[in-house]
């Protein structure tokens, strides 16, 4: 499913992860806190600080054709979750917590402003370790996911 979405799939996933609570990821504040807390989740842009942070990017979707009765194009949206951490074990533990949370998502409602979305499911392909960030000793992990989402209102 998908249809047209008012917000990007990465933004919807960001709000979904923030809504799970439990300190999994932290919503950015306005104005930004100084120093910024760990595990702020960003969309499309990775800030230089703090060391421990999460960024979500849109990637290519999987197009599933059109449904017979209404001709609606069906697709699974692709998203990359990038986890930057000071050390490898800390990054892996955060990735593990995120994948566990993603596995539990089933027909979850996400509200962004006046828009409401229904996330049917999010499937991932495991955790990838990319090594050190260029120019620093911070570590990078990624999780690639596809998400099935529909805008309800």
């Amino acid at each position, binding site marked *: 499913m998908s249809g047209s979405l008012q917000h990007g799939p990465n933004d919807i996933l960001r709000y979904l992860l923030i809504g799970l609570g439990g300190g999994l990821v932290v919503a950015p504040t306005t104005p930004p806190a100084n120093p910024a807390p760990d595990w702020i989740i960003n969309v499309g842009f*990775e800030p230089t600080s703090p060391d421990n942070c999460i*960024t979500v*990017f849109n*990637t*290519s*979707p*999987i*197009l599933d054709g059109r449904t017979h009765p209404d001709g609606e194009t069906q697709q699974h949206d*692709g998203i*990359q979750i*990038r986890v930057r951490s000071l050390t490898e074990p800390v990054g892996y533990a955060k990735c593990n917590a995120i994948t566990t949370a993603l596995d539990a998502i089933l027909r979850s409602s996400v509200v962004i402003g006046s828009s409401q979305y229904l996330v049917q499911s999010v499937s991932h392909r495991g955790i*990838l370790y*990319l*090594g050190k960030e260029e120019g620093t000793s911070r570590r*990078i992990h*990624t999780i*690639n996911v596809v998400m099935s989402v529909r805008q309800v209102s």
Partner: protein
Amino acid sequence: MASSSLTSINAVLKRLEKKYGGNVSVIVGYPWKPRTSKGDRGPETYSIYVHEDLTKNHEIGQAKFLEQPARQLRREIGQAVVTVTQKTGSLKSGLIAGGELLKTASQALVPVDTGALHDSAFVAVE
């Protein structure tokens, strides 16, 4: 190894395996191994990093140079596998043709600095 095992065409493969026999699979990818020493600088030491790093702007090419065409061309790849398998009677030949199609599409997107990563793309029968 940054690779795609063409899992999206599983239904087509099952049908072809029934008709043409054989339990064969093909991997399309770029070599990958962790760096073991400072002098170790082949494309196999950075292929996955280039593929996954969406924060970099490349003058030529882009990240996700394998995953994106694998998703976008899955129907065309499936069709190539079916056509060549039916023509040759060999599922292995069909899968290699599908793999070559993906490899060519991927090489058109791979970032080019020295060309080493571009040239390291492979199609291998498992």
